[in-house]
């Protein structure tokens, strides 16, 4: 008996130690090109999305300058429309809360809503504030601009009145700070692109793992909770319609919050399958990686299951009232049903997908129990 065991072990040891290929070349070889996946996500999605966003911000800055020079209704309208264009472009990059963006708290500086109007008013009159201070995160970015451009009762009079210069200054400093941070992040992407796509090891800090974790986090928080769940009162018991994204613009325009949510969802789906920012082609995405890892779940392909769950959720959002606020106020039940359909993808992403990717997020010892 013992001899047998020894023999088995010796063979095992021999096999391990020589590390030779035994000609058993079946399809279990990993052989997946993670760099190619990362390169596609970086070169065809992340960087183009950022470049597009940067361009929209430059337009926004120009509109703000025009409005500064000539504070009239026409320039206000074009400023509003540049703001909305930039806000739509923002939906493409919010999920990439990684590297420089994460370091400077970009996401929270750009899109913490609802904004804090009291603090904004104080900042405008005092002209004494530090946008880098987390107390001021909810007084800047898109939500604060929303308040300035769409939330004030008579913006032309305010911006050209006695305190007009204070309003103008705050507007411009917000826009410039957004652009400044964006430029910084784009510079880092351009400088560290190679480093990023070659970080393919399986550690908590490697590129793919961070991107995937950020993607899931964004789906759960930035998208599911912020855009739908919180306004519908999922986390508070009673609905909070004033917590929709772009609240003030939505009051006038009715469709803004829903359009932003739909735009964000399209970005989520494009990222998952690796579709280019400009839609010209589809490269390698996380879905391909999952397929490669043989993620067959009871005959269902996990990628397909996630995609069809996304589709159902998107359909549910589409079928909501064009005005999310009125949907919440008149028939919040449908809003909650939509939330559940978005939520249905969360276990698939957070459990099934992570099992297959075996992403190492442990930061203390574990023995697997």
């Amino acid at each position, binding site marked *: 008996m*013992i001899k047998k065991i020894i023999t088995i*072990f010796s063979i095992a040891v021999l096999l391990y130690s020589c590390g030779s290929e035994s000609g058993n070349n079946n399809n279990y070889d990993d052989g997946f090109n993670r760099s190619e996946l990362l390169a596609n996500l970086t070169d065809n999605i992340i960087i183009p999305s950022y470049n597009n966003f940067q361009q929209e911000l430059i337009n926004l800055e120009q509109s703000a300058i025009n409005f500064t020079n000539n504070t009239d209704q026409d320039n206000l309208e074009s400023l509003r429309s540049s703001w909305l264009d930039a806000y739509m472009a923002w939906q493409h990059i919010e999920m990439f809360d990684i590297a420089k963006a994460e370091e400077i708290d970009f996401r929270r500086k750009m899109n913490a809503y609802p904004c804090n109007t009291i603090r904004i008013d104080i900042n405008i009159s005092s002209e004494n504030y530090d946008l880098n201070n987390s107390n001021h995160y909810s007084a800047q970015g898109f939500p604060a601009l929303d308040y300035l451009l769409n939330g004030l009762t008579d913006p032309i009079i305010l911006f050209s009145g006695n305190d007009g210069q204070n309003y103008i200054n705050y507007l411009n400093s917000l826009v410039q700070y957004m652009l400044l941070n964006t430029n910084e992040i784009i510079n880092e992407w351009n400088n560290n692109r190679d480093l990023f796509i070659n970080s393919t090891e399986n550690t908590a800090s490697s590129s793919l793992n961070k991107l995937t974790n950020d993607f899931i986090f964004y789906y759960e928080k930035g998208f599911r909770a912020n855009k739908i769940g919180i306004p519908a009162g999922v986390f508070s018991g009673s609905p909070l319609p004033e917590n929709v994204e772009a609240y003030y613009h939505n009051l006038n325009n009715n469709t803004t919050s829903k359009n932003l949510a739909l735009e964000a969802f399209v970005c989520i789906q494009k990222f998952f399958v690796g579709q280019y920012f400009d839609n010209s082609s589809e490269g390698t995405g996380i879905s391909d990686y999952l397929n490669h890892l043989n993620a067959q779940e*009871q005959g269902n392909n996990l990628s397909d299951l996630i995609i069809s769950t996304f589709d159902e959720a998107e359909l549910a959002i589409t079928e909501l009232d064009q005005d999310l606020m009125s949907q919440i106020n008149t028939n919040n039940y449908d809003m909650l049903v939509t939330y559940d359909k978005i939520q249905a993808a969360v276990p698939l992403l957070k459990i099934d997908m992570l099992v297959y*990717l075996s992403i*190492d997020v442990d930061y203390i010892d574990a023995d697997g129990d």
Partner: protein
Amino acid sequence: MMSTLKKYINSYTDSSPLVIFRIGFGLMMFFSILRFWSKGWIDKIYVKPSFHFTYYGFEWIEQLGEYTYILFLICAISAFFITIGLKYRISIIIFFLSFTYIELLEKTIYLNHYYFICVLSFLLIFIPLNSSFSIDNILSKHRSTKVPRWTIDSIKLLLCIVYIYAGLAKINSDWLLEALPLKIWLPSKYDLPIIGDTLMQKNWVHYAMSWGGMIYDLSIPFLLINKKTRNFGFFMVVFFHVFTRILFPIGVFPYIMIMSATIFFDSKVHDRIILALKNVSKIKFKDYKIKDRNSLNNKFSIIILSLFFILQLTIPLRNLAYSGNLMWHEQGYRFSWRVMLMEKIGYTTFKILNKDNGQSFIVDNDEFLTSYQKKQMNFQPDFILEYAHYLGRHFKNKGLKNIEVYADSYVSLNGRKSQRFINPNINLLAETESFANKNWILPLKNE
């Protein structure tokens, strides 16, 4: 029968294996406490979180906050005292108490090897590791070169129990027939040099390692006990544990197991090591009066340790009292040497229903739990229940007097598709922790 037992109890053997064991154990404990400290884990795990998961029956354990550092300090100092054999008996008692207290503070970081340290240090209270080559010898001016045979044998017995139960636990269909969870874990080690992109991806390697691991655990005790195979057995211990250390984040455990296995060697081997240590350290031990027989209270120790081993043999079997898949419901899973058996990942949220107005809301777990607590809570029923009760208390204190708590829970076990884990229609506030079967855990489907 009784006479052989009596004879055995009164038989003596060289104490040198205990000396090496003492130094090895003490040093490892000392350095693992420093390691834990230096990684900032004391703060992260014990000080920062506002809520802690506790063990059933030990909910009364007082959290120490910042004073946890002092407890670790006490634990480290006692480990050092053990190493040099200074006031051994009191040091090992303090070590056992402080280490166990630390473990009882937070269930989230339960690991079999921490439990092993608790159990082993309890056992060591009754074993005279300071018999020779210790400061205690200098202080008391006597030493014993001989110790009762049962002292060394009981350490061996504990190790055998650990290995055998670990091996038996591996005899299950996931492990042997599906090579799970190794089939999931090993391919993710693609970034290891040489073997990462080759062997770790091979299906046959996953099977070989699953079966090898099972055979290894079951045969190691026999390989180490048998003199002829001992060297090979020890080589396997070193190889296996170093290999698992490379593959998995299991901290200092492999080294502790390697060190512990030295107890199986003959005293001659240990004598040589002690001689080398004496030469290096230049400590001169005068010719103290050699007491052949150690003065510890034999009878009392033997009774306590007999009970101890009966418990060690039965505790790992308590899962037999529960039906269903053990890895799924985890009732009786802990404290039974089930190591690396499952890849389990879950996602659990809680709905608070206000019975007064019918409104409900979902709790943001990030408000209450650290990410590591959340990860563990997500798939373990007793955590889910304890947390549900915590949430109940929290919201009752906030003025919601009449509430119910429901869990929306999904879990994936060993790569199966995630499925509902907790009955979503059961108000968890109405359930209490006990040894009774938790019938609010839904059975694993497609078994």
